[in-house]
């Protein structure tokens, strides 16, 4: 293992950040919000996966993808296909002309289940596919682009085109995909009703748990040498190449990692919200997700989560009153953040709040040091500050 201690992987200031976020998501939110609001937060949590992935591939690797909705969507669709098949048992669909297939297929005169739907009867396969399908897709895109040294703006445009193409494909192939409505009316997971309040609580906590798992994975990556290579590559790709690294492989890896994280978010979205549709795949949601990461701070994995919350909270409250203005407001927000606070909320925290917090804590510690037993080693920061 590259890290000798947990301290090395999670230095004190990161540990504090993780703890505060965990407190907010796992304790405060469920404690103070009703289930409707909590479910909404749960939905935002699933977007946060994508933002965390973007911090890795855009913030660290310098690869701007305007098509992360594709991976979120593919993960979500894989999960939706399983749930839809379970909801389409012959008994439940007895009134259809072909019972036992999803309702939208029946409406589109399909008389049997398409071959690629068959494996989604199995939950194990579905869990595997939820990650594997988006990652494979990401790998093909990344391999084709990065091995040919396509990068920067060109790559961003290509990912955007892919998001557009996939949306058109899903909408066009109504009989196989549910078209513009998506896959709706999902009910149970292995007989467990996912629409009840208790299920929503459980799914919220599963999302939170998985988000933290992804955050730890991201923390591992950014603290490993690979994380530093990504930063180096972002700055001077050529130098990295001439230090003996095959740059394309590193880009492929981080793009696939971001896709995997996004896909987990997509699958959890389907479970919590109860449907999946092409409106989460296309260009607009993909760009929105980039804005989440930008607002949070594209170099901060925790910032990405806060960015997602803030933007979505603003979206919900703002679009209720001025729905037609929201897109303009979001565009302005993006431009404003990039120009005025290129490091987003995390940057503001680091340059204003953190120094203040440090002096505050240290002054408190030195004041009350005599009351703290030395064996806890809590007096240390004060001594360091005095140095």
């Amino acid at each position, binding site marked *: 293992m590259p890290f000798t201690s947990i301290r090395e992987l999670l230095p004190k200031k990161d540990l504090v950040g993780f703890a505060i976020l965990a407190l907010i998501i796992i304790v405060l939110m469920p404690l103070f919000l009703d289930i409707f609001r909590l479910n909404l937060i749960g939905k935002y949590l699933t977007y946060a996966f994508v933002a965390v992935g973007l911090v890795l591939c855009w913030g660290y690797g310098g690869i701007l993808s305007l098509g992360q909705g594709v991976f979120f969507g593919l993960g979500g669709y894989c999960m939706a296909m399983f749930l839809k098949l379970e909801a389409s048992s012959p008994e439940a669909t007895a009134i259809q002309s072909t019972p036992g297939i999803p309702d939208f297929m029946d409406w589109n005169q399909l008389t049997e289940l398409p071959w690629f739907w068959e494996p989604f009867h199995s939950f194990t396969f579905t869990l595997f596919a939820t990650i594997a399908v988006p990652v494979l897709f990401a790998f093909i895109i990344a391999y084709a682009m990065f091995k040919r040294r396509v990068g920067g703006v060109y790559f961003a445009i290509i990912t955007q085109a892919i998001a557009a193409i996939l949306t058109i494909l899903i909408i066009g192939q109504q009989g196989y995909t549910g078209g513009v409505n998506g896959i709706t009316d999902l009910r149970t997971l292995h007989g467990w009703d996912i629409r009840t309040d208790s299920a929503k609580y459980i799914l919220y906590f599963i999302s939170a748990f998985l988000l933290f798992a992804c955050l730890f994975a991201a923390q591992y990556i950014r603290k490993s*040498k690979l994380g530093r290579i990504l930063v180096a590559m972002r700055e001077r790709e*050529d*130098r990295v*190449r*001439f230090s003996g690294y095959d740059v394309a*492989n590193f880009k492929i890896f981080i793009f696939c990692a971001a896709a995997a994280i996004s896909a987990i978010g997509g699958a959890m979205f389907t479970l919590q919200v109860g449907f999946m549709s092409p409106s989460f795949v296309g260009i607009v949601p993909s760009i929105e997700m980039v804005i989440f990461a930008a607002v949070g701070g594209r170099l901060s994995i925790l910032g990405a989560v806060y960015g997602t919350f803030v933007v979505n909270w603003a979206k919900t409250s703002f679009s209720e009153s001025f729905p037609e203005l929201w897109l303009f407001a979001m565009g302005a927000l993006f431009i404003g953040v990039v120009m005025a606070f290129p490091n987003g909320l995390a940057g503001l925290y680091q340059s204003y709040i953190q120094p203040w917090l440090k002096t505050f804590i240290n002054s408190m510690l030195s004041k009350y040091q005599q009351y703290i037993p030395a064996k806890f080693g809590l007096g240390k920061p004060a001594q360091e500050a005095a140095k």
Partner: protein
Amino acid sequence: MTTTHNHKHKEMALYIEGLTVSFDGFKAVNDLSLYVEEQEIRVIIGPNGAGKTTVLDLICGRTKATSGSIKFKGKELTRLKEHEIVHAGVGRKFQNPSIYEDLTVFENLEISYPRGRNVWGALIFRRDDEVRKKVHEIAEMIFLGDKLDSPADLLSHGQKQWLEIGMLLIQDPELLMLDEPVAGMSVSERKQTAALLQRITKDRSVLVIEHDMQFVEDIADRVTVLHQGKVLSEGSMERVKSDPKVVEVYLGH
């Protein structure tokens, strides 16, 4: 200064034969042949646009040759990718200091340390004592022993040049290529750099591009003069200096 009489007994490290590269019909390097011996310090000089940097680009794989062959320790480099050429033992320093300014001096050197160069290796790479020791050793050598934790963008221009030389050293290449290593350095920095190069060029071949004639005289075993993509003259500094062709196109100015 080493004399050139014993070079006949040494093995050749680098063979360049009939090397040509053409950019839309313009031959930046034209049917060039060049041989560098093991442990030789060869300096390439020549007027601007003579193709000096292009030759280094061709060797390290940044530019693909139109025709010709580059053999290093028996390996044909023209068919390899950049990182494979590095693995074959070729290290290159660029004209402008090319370092990672967002990383610290330590991290800059660590990235160049030849271990964990694939994705998996980089994920499980561990900063152990061996790495630390090597980084400290190299940092001392390049006069940056007390700067390990400072971000590289705070270094002076000369220190950045040294850092990049250090990044090459930690790779321990068998062929070291330096493109204007003392450009933009003060007189005292130049002297330090010359002494540094004398020390680090043991046990490896070195190919240097340089304009500073005093510096060239100080370090070169042999000098190759390029002009319009071809070798104009080659030999010891004294010989080259007295070559009327060289005086006419380059030194005479």
